[in-house]
C-alpha cells in the first residue's frame, strides 16, 4: 500500500501548444497531503490530469504515478441521468480488480455497501443516481474512490458547491486517507481551509510559484504574483526556449 514518491522533472503540459503547466519540477512525498492552489486557468486541473496519465506532458517526466492513482475530476463528465443504482456506480471502483469480466461476488458487494455507509449514504444502495442531490452524488463518488483503494488520490475541487456538513464529512475522509499513509493531492480555492487542514501547498500559475510548507508558500506576495501571471496572455507568443536544469 505504501505509495511511491511522485517526481516531476521540468514538466510542461499544454493545450494546442499553449502551456497550461509550465516547466514544473518537484516531488510529492509518499503519504503527503498537498493542496494545489492558484487562480482559474492556472493549470491545476491539467496538472492532476497529467498525474493521472490522462494528458501527456509535452516535455519533462512524471515518475512514480503510473498505475497507482485515483482521480476525482472537477465536473465529472458523467451522465447523471443514466439508469444505474448507487451501488452499481460505487462498484465500478473495483474495475482495476475485476476488469470487464471477473465476477464481483458477495465480498465486493459488501465492500461497496460499507463504502456507502462510510460516506453517510446508508440505505442508498438501490437508489438511482439520477435522484441524488449534488452533495449526495459527491458522496457516491467518494465511496467509489474508497473502493478503488489507490495509494495516491487526486481530488479536483472536491468541496465545490457542497454544504458545510457534507464538506466536513468528505474532509474527514481525506484525513482518513492521509492517516492511512496515502498520498493525497487536492485542488482547492478556500485558502482558510488550506491553511487549517493541509500541511503542504503547491502554488501554481502555469509556472510553479511555490511548493512546500503551506505557511511559507501562501504569502501575500506569492499570491499577487500568481494572479498577475495567470492573467498574462500574449496573442502571438514565441516558441518557448527555456530549459531548466533539473
Amino acid at each position, binding site marked *: 500500500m505504501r505509495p511511491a514518491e511522485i517526481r516531476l522533472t521540468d514538466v510542461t503540459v499544454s493545450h494546442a501548444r499553449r502551456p497550461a503547466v509550465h516547466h514544473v519540477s518537484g516531488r510529492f512525498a509518499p503519504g503527503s497531503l498537498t493542496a494545489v492552489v492558484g487562480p482559474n486557468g492556472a493549470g491545476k486541473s491539467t496538472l492532476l490530469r497529467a498525474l493521472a496519465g490522462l494528458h501527456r506532458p509535452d516535455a519533462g517526466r512524471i515518475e512514480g504515478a503510473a498505475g497507482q492513482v485515483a482521480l476525482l475530476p472537477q465536473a465529472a463528465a*458523467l451522465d447523471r441521468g*443514466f439508469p444505474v443504482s448507487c451501488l452499481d456506480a460505487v462498484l465500478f471502483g473495483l474495475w482495476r480488480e475485476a476488469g470487464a469480466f471477473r465476477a464481483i461476488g458477495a465480498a465486493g458487494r459488501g465492500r461497496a455497501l460499507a463504502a456507502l455507509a462510510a460516506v453517510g449514504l446508508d440505505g442508498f444502495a438501490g437508489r438511482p443516481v439520477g435522484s441524488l442531490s449534488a452533495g449526495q452524488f459527491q458522496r457516491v463518488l467518494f465511496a467509489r474512490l474508497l473502493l478503488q483503494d489507490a495509494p495516491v488520490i487526486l481530488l479536483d475541487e472536491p468541496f465545490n458547491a457542497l454544504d458545510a456538513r457534507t464538506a466536513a464529512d468528505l474532509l474527514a475522509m481525506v484525513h482518513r486517507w492521509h492517516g492511512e499513509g496515502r498520498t493525497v493531492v487536492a485542488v482547492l480555492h478556500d485558502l482558510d481551509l488550506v491553511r487549517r487542514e493541509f500541511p503542504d501547498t503547491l502554488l501554481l500559475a502555469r509556472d510553479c510559484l511555490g511548493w512546500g510548507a503551506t505557511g511559507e508558500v501562501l504569502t501575500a506576495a506569492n499570491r499577487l504574483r500568481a494572479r498577475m501571471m495567470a492573467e498574462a496572455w500574449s496573442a502571438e507568443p514565441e516558441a518557448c526556449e527555456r530549459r531548466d536544469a533539473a
Partner: protein
Amino acid sequence: MSVAAPVLGLFLMLRRMSLTADVLGHGILPGVAAGFLLAGLSLPAMAAGGLVAGLAVAVGAGALSRATGGREDASLAALYLVALAAGVAMVSWRGGAVELTSLLFGSVLGVDDAALLLMAGSASVTLGVMALAWRPLVLECFDPGFAQAVGARGAWWHMGFLALVVLNLIAAFQALGTLMAVGLMMLPAIAARHWARGVGGMAYAAVGIAAASAYAGLLLSFHADVPSGPAVVLAAGLCWLVSTLCGPVDGLLGRLVRRPHLAG
C-alpha cells in the same frame, strides 16, 4: 432479430446516439447496392458490401470529426445523406423500382434459408457479446472519463459495439429493408424507457416489445399486403405510443393522475 437488436438500441439511446443507428442504416445502403450491382440479388454479396460500407461509415464519422474538429453529429449527417443518395442512385442504375423498394423497405418473401441463418447467427453473436461486454459498455455510457482513467479502453468497446450494430442492420435488411431495420432496433428501446428504471429491466422490456411488434407486423404485412419493414416498424411505433401514454415510468397519463406527494 427482435431479441438482439433492441438491446443494442437501448445502449444507443442511453448514449444519446439514437440517430447514429439511422445513419448506419443509411450507410450500409451503398455497400448493399454495390453488392447488388456486382452480383444481382445475392445475399452474400449484398451482406458483405453492406458490412464494409457500414463499418466504414461508423469508423469514418468518428475519425472525421476528431480530425477536422467538427461535431460528430454533423459529419454523421453529411455521411448519411451522401450514402443514401449514392445507394439509391446505384440501385436505380441497374435495377428497377421493385428492387429499390425491396432493398429500402424489405420483403419477407425474399427471405430464404441463408438469410434466416444469417439473422439467427448474428442475433446469437450479438447476445453473447452483449452479455460479455455489459459491464464495460455500461461504464463507458455512464462515466467515460472514469473509464478512461481506470484504463477500461472505452473506445475499443465502443467500436466493437458499433460493429455489432452494423452486423444487426445487415442481418435484418432483407426482411425489413435498410431503412426500416433501424426501427426494430430503436423504437422498442425508446418505448422500454417507460417500463423500467434500471438498464437490465429496460433490456427485457425492449426485447418483449420488439418480439411482439415483429409478430404483429408480419401478420399485418401478410394479410394487408404492406411491405414487411414498414408494417413491423408501425407495430413497434404503436407500442411506443402506448408506452409513452400509459407506461408506468414517466408516462403521459401518469402525469394527469394527481397523487398526493409523499411525507418524506
